[in-house]
């Protein structure tokens, strides 16, 4: 039975966790993901879940406990943000290398310094190569829906990888929105019972997990792991489609908005998609052929879906909420432009925006579309990398 409730983004995660009822949650609170842990610990204290909640002393310990519990054979979930994710860094790689189907909510927040608690994507971008699947959410409904789907994606026998559910800190982690929820029974039926693959506590089949792995085999193990990411896109799409049948809300790996007949388009991640869709509508009303590609699955990067959606454009703008210091453009830009290599020769521009929670306005996004239209007509001026909304 569908029900409509008011939830802020973090509460939507906690509510989804409650419905999933995982075996173990090991977490350490950090702004702006604190309420995930806070609300979920209320469910634990009230006896509304069966979860073993491990209150750890740091995020490094949180992820370590998650990995240990997962290896033992538990369904495991957690949540963090920014410095917390950074502190987990070495454990993130171990979680993915050991193929642990852990689901983690990540309220995206800037990395220090200086100290900042507000939204940008530098935490998730730092973990880009850690082997975790990264799904980005546009709004609170997306967080709720994606958290539930992430469990089924992670645990799929062709995947068995950890998943980060990324959502913009404060922008949606603390925004109260109307959310359609499923019943506990629907959620549990959708994710199915947990069937651990090769659990350590299966003592009839003794095994070694995480042994020393030197010149002889490490390379082969990495190559072996790399192959699994080819399975992920189809599984995310299948799960998104199945979720659509259950809830009426369909999900894919990308969300293309008014791109079919567009001449210029923006590619981005996260909550700014909502603002940009309004800009697309208002500019379309004025006769501008503009469109938007919001990427839901950033890792593994769905190359064909992205290229197919934008290769017909005359100019493409990639918005990164992260400054890759010293690099030639930020991660989403380099990934998109690299994917387009050989497919199109149109200009691809990079727009850095919103660092440390800096507001991105509709006027600024309209300005980006105008820059794309001008570049399509007149060619690239300068290095093609722009900083939006920063004081000169």
């Amino acid at each position, binding site marked *: 039975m569908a029900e409509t409730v008011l939830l802020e983004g973090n509460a939507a995660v906690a509510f989804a966790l409650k419905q999933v009822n995982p075996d173990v949650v090991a977490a350490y609170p950090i702004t702006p993901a604190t309420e995930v842990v806070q609300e979920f610990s209320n469910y634990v204290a009230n006896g509304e879940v069966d979860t073993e909640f491990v209150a750890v002393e740091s995020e490094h310990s949180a992820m370590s406990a998650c990995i240990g519990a997962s290896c033992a054979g538990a369904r495991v979930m957690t949540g963090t943000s920014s410095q917390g994710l950074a502190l987990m860094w070495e454990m993130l790689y171990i979680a993915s*290398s050991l*193929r642990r189907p852990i689901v983690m909510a990540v309220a995206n927040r800037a990395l220090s310094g200086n100290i900042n608690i507000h939204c940008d994507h530098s935490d998730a971008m730092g973990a880009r190569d850690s082997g975790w699947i990264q799904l980005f959410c546009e709004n609170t409904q997306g967080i709720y829906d994606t958290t539930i789907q992430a469990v089924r994606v992670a645990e799929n026998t062709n995947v068995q990888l950890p998943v980060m559910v990324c959502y913009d800190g404060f922008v949606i982690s603390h925004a109260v929105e109307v959310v359609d929820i499923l019943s506990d029974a629907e959620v549990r039926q959708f994710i199915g019972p947990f069937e651990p693959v090769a659990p350590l506590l299966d003592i009839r089949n003794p*095994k070694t*997990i995480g*042994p020393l*792995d030197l010149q002889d085999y490490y*390379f082969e193990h990495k190559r*072996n792991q790399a*192959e699994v990411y080819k399975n992920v896109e189809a599984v995310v799409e299948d799960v998104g489609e199945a979720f659509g049948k259950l809830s009426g809300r369909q999900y894919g790996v990308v969300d293309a908005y008014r791109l079919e007949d567009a001449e210029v388009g923006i590619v981005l991640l996260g909550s700014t998609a909502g603002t940009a869709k309004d800009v697309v509508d208002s500019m379309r009303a004025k006769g501008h052929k503009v469109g938007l590609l919001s990427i839901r699955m950033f890792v593994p990067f769905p190359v064909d879906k992205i290229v197919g959606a934008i290769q017909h454009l005359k100019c493409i703008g990639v918005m990164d909420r992260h400054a890759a210091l010293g690099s030639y453009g930020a991660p989403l830009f380099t990934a998109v432009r690299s994917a387009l290599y050989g497919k199109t020769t149109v200009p691809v521009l990079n727009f850095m925006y919103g660092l440390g929670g800096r507001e991105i306005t509709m006027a600024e996004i309209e300005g980006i579309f105008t820059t794309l239209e001008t570049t399509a007509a007149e060619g690239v001026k300068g290095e093609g990398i722009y900083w939006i909304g920063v004081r000169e």
Partner: protein
Amino acid sequence: MKIKPGAGWKDLPAGGFINEPATALEFHTGDWRAMRPVWHEDKCIQCLQCWVYCPDSAVIVRDQKVCGPNLDYCKGCGICAKVCPPKEKAITMIREGEEG
């Protein structure tokens, strides 16, 4: 799933797991040995000092009698030769590759 030596990436278990016990037995830790113990049976008085002191449990004993070093696991540290009674010198160390 048995991992064969020299297995390619397609033949490895997911997650780098080793899905069977006691595989350390197959890891021949003696293969980088520089010096090799040579046991002289005719001089051995069966005091078992080498068996007691060997840090790698690489002295083979059958029916309470020393039968020589297990060269699969002997790292060539020379402790056995050192503790062998000086009058007997039943164990001597030679460079790996030389004839004993």
